[in-house]
């Protein structure tokens, strides 16, 4: 029988240092692992890495695992440790999350433990399909990951490494390598880390820049005792309700400041700007008039005690309803100078490069009719044969090259036609829809303040264009109908909120139908 090789006859209690890398396929997790292994080997350690890439290389979540340890000076030649090929929960020294939710996944899988693990995560988010495809807001909570990391990890290092990587013209893996160096769990000098990057020979300059950014950021974070801060995800920028030097608009601002309670200034400011920008100063005046009426209702129903929730909610959704998305609006937005600048920034064009945009537009006869004077639009709509014939001509995809003079002029003129908007069929329909909605709100408010607020917020469901818009509209109608059945119940507001949330869960309204059935079962 053969005996196992060993440095001594008693069991050695030395344990390897373990590192788990949680990444998505294509993130460069493999490069990072190769660096760590090469680094360990260059320092006289024995290192083993494994991975299960499989099909996960196609953007799926994947785990790499490294174990490494120094070989004793007096070890017999060829002595190698027996290392694990799988992550050993509870025995991981460093967990690297190349994206925030992957760090969360590592915690869930028990890889991160408070006695041992330094968790290094890039705080940036790369949303999963499950998060993106929801018609509403399906984004997972970053706060939850930070909260879990604060109890699960011995030390938690997190900052947005994607931004630093971009700044350095490199990849997240290089920033992470810098963070690993600065975290001081691997007992090697910074120069050894950098030498490893150099020796790898690919994209060295960029990698070293990114490495340095990761290293320094980790060090500067380490000097403060505070845990890393959750990046503000859904911060809103409210325009100030202040004069801008335009007499008409400034008069509206003065009116608003006087008429509305300060708690509502932020939202009234946002709504006022949107409606004026959508049409003109007079339209902003209409907005304030309508809102003023709702404020009166709010005051009568003791809204002050509720922070004027009714007025605030109305300020938001009334503006959304009034600044609907029609052909003129889209044409106007697409032709603005500010937009041309924004596109250049978004595509990161260098100053010497030229950028041309092509818009993908697919107008249908519905949109055309809506943009015509009310009588003409109606005339066509009432004649299905004519409508169909015209639709055949109109209804096709058009690729609009906004950067060329010919196409720009078309869009520019369309954008300019917003001055005729008030007479269009679409406007008439929108006003009717809006008035019906507000009537329901007005009727509900005296009896059930909470319900009135929820009815206002239901307007969130109407969004999108063409089919999507129609689908949103129908969900809105269903929730409003459900609300009618619920009126008078003490939990009506709660239920309307639930219905709205259900409507935002999936495209086909399956969750909403389920929720409505539940409502039917008890009303």
């Amino acid at each position, binding site marked *: 029988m053969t005996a196992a090789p060993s440095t001594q006859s008693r069991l050695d209690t030395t344990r390897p240092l373990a590192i788990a890398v949680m990444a998505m396929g294509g993130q460069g997790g493999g490069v990072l692992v190769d660096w760590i292994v090469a680094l360990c080997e260059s320092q006289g350690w024995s290192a083993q890495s494994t991975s299960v890439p499989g099909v*996960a290389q196609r953007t799926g979540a994947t785990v790499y695992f490294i174990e490494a340890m120094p070989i004793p000076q007096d070890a017999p030649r060829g002595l190698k440790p027996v290392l694990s090929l799988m992550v050993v929960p509870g025995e991981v020294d460093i967990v690297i999350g190349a994206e925030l939710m992957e760090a969360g996944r590592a915690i869930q899988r028990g890889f991160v433990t408070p006695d041992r693990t330094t968790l290094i995560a890039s705080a940036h988010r790369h949303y999963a399909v499950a998060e*993106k495809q929801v018609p509403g807001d399906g984004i997972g909570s970053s706060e939850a990951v930070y909260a879990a990391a604060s109890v699960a990890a011995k030390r938690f290092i997190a900052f947005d490494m994607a931004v630093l990587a971009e700044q350095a013209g490199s990849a997240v893996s290089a920033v992470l390598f810098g963070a690993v160096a600065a975290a001081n769990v691997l007992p090697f000098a910074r120069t050894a880390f950098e030498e490893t990057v150099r020796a790898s020979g690919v994209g060295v300059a960029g990698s070293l820049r990114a490495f340095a950014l990761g290293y320094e950021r980790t060090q500067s974070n380490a000097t403060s005792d505070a845990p890393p801060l959750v990046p503000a995800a859904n911060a809103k920028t409210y325009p100030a309700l202040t004069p801008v030097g335009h007499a008409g608009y400034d008069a509206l601002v003065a009116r608003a400041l006087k008429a509305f309670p300060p708690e509502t200034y932020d939202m009234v400011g946002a709504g006022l700007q949107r409606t004026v920008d959508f049409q003109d100063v007079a339209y902003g005046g209409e907005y304030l008039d309508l809102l003023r009426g709702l404020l009166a209702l709010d005051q009568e129903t003791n809204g002050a005690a509720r922070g004027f929730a009714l007025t605030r909610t109305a300020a938001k959704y009334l503006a959304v309803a009034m600044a609907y998305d029609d052909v003129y609006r889209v044409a106007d937005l697409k*032709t603005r100078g500010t937009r041309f600048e924004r596109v250049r920034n978004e595509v990161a064009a260098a100053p010497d490069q030229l950028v041309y945009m092509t818009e993908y537009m697919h107008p249908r006869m519905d949109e055309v009719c809506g943009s015509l004077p009310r009588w003409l639009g109606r005339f066509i709509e009432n004649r299905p044969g004519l409508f169909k014939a015209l639709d055949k001509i109109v209804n096709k995809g058009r690729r609009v090259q906004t950067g060329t003079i010919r196409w720009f002029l078309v869009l520019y003129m369309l954008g300019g036609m917003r001055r005729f908007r008030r007479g269009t069929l679409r406007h008439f329909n929108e006003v009717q829809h809006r008035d019906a909605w507000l009537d329901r709100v007005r009727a509900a408010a005296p009896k059930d303040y909470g319900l009135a607020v929820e009815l206002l917020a239901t307007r969130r469901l109407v969004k999108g264009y063409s089919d999507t818009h129609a689908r949103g509209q129908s969900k809105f109608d269903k929730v409003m109908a459900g609300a009618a059945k619920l009126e008078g119940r003490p939990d009506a507001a709660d239920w309307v909120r639930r219905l709205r949330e259900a409507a935002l869960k999936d495209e086909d309204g399956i969750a909403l139908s389920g929720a409505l059935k539940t409502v039917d079962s008890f009303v």
Partner: protein
Amino acid sequence: MAERSFAKEVRDLELGAGEEFRGEGILAITKALLQSGVGYVGGYQGAPISHLMDVLNDAQDTLDKLGVQFSNSASEAAAAASLAASVMYPIRGAVTFKAPVGVNVASDALANLTSGGVTGGALIIIGEDYGEGSSIMQERSHSFAMKSQMWLLDPRPNLESIVRAVEEGFELSEVSNTPVMLEVRIRACHVHGSFIAKDNKPPPFTLRQALESPKRDTGRIVLPPASYLHEKEKIEQRWPAAVNFIKTRKLNEFFDGDLTDVGIVTQGGMYNGVIRALERLGLADVWGQSRVPIYVMNVTYPVIDDEVAEFCASKKAVLIVEEGQPEHIEQAIATILRRRDINTKIYGKGALPMAGEYTADVMLKGVRSFLASAAPDALTDQVRAPNAPNINDDSRVQALASAVPPRPPGFCTGCPERPIFAAMKLVEKETGSHHVASDIGCHLFSCLPPFNLGATTMGYGLGPASAAAFNVKTDKKSISMIGDGGFWHNGLTSSVGNAVYNKHDGVIIVIDNFYSSATGGQDILSSRADTESRSTQHPIKKAVEGVGATWVRQIDNTYNVGKMRDTLKEALANNEPGPKVIVASSECMLNKQRRVKPLFNKAVKDGERKVRERFGVDEDVCTGDHACIRLSGCPSLSVKHSADPLKDDPVAAIDNSCVGCGNCGEVSEAAVLCPSFYRADIIYNPTGFDRFMARMRGAVIGFLQRRRARRRVAFA
């Protein structure tokens, strides 16, 4: 052309005696083949053994120098059949594929090969795709070894042991005239380690020599009466020869320990896991020294009766560590002990789970429960009943369940298959849902969100075959998918030929992306690449027509969603007998980018005028419904929170990883989604004329923009 270049790895293949090889397990195997004097290598790519194929493909020079013949087999069956060269001639041959799926496909050839037996060493290297990261059904290849009586090696998962298994595997094969399977699990294939290399050996007997003096022996052909004799020969001659070799050459390993009442019998591949579990229980150390004796079966079939009996005889209880099911080894050991009346208690399945991967914690629990029952004194109280609070019980950790989204693999940025499924979704919206039969390949991701298309998958190249029963008159034909990889693997006959012959009234979509993409972008018959060593550029359309399909449509740009949709509608409406075949061709974007990007960058660097396209979303036009995402799922098309206080839901956003494939624009146009998408054409190194036009346009457009901006209320 494979996904990546293996220039460094090719150099590693040429290391000489005494030099240290550092790298992946699967590459160590490749090197071991050359050190063993292999004469020919074949195989079919697939995780986790693709790299073996890719490296040899890039190593033509080395192979030529040595006189080693390497072929990319059309399928695992073709690879296994190529081992026929070792039947009559003393030439070592090796083939490799993913298992057990590859073994399934190859089993006909393997059974024939094993029946007649081999003269030269025949090695079948199988990448056992089991457990985390696996993309296939969870089964064992072990049963195949048993049914045909091929020997199965399962070495300890370190490079030295694996390399030794290759070298000794050939010898074992030769002394027992039996093909040998070498099983390597996913992690072992990808494990980074090192071993001391030997010189490469040219094959002592060459294929040319064989062809110049051919030999035959009816006794080796699977025909009665020889086939009856083969079975007897297996039991009476080959088996004892193998057992003798395994024993005398000590292929299996015994590790002593002072707790002699108990022992662990383990598959070689599980060894590191066993040691770690013992280490966590305070009974072993990181150098492999263990207090519990261990019998490591580097050969898991045949089981060596004498070794098992010797190991178990003096022990009260043994634990058998055997991953997967059925528990073939445990059953064999139980029989051996029973026959010899050795009453050692067997722990195996029960202490360890019957199904599922032996992860670190599963192994720990199994070994602990075995020792707690069989040798309780060996464990400290702390180890026997650990009472440490588990951080996973903390409510903050449990709250992650609702925050962390699943992240299955999906289509890459710019994938040409995405628009095909987007078009199918659009058709579905008009005609209702259809029965969709899927196949193996990247396109199987269509089963997942956001597409949710595809009802079954029955094996590589078998998508349309799996819809064969649905050959009935209906207004709703079945739609079946097949990739170019599966098409050439066997789909041309089993799927397309089958449908033609049976006049199957269904729609077949052949997804042709110029490579066997899911396995790493290897070339196949219809690849557009020009390669010196292989014959490519054979159009799928011609092949389909060649087997008699009459309704065939070739689409050369899958990104044209409208055309894709209309063609599919046309196919569904057509009532001619026979399959309606749509060949949808566009290059795999991952490979295209690898090919094109360096050229683009170089051209730009050289001052050439170049246009890069990418897409964007106008945030203020987007209303945050995400309908576009539900028809795409592209990694570069994502969402972001809007700073606009009037917007509740995140808006769509495209990042700079966009490759401008055109899908977003096409989909929003075909599905009449919304006008928020734009394509930006970024002109690098604009010419003088470009700049002149830009100035002209800028002057007119800028004038109009400023004019309108002046009339508008300007907000800061």
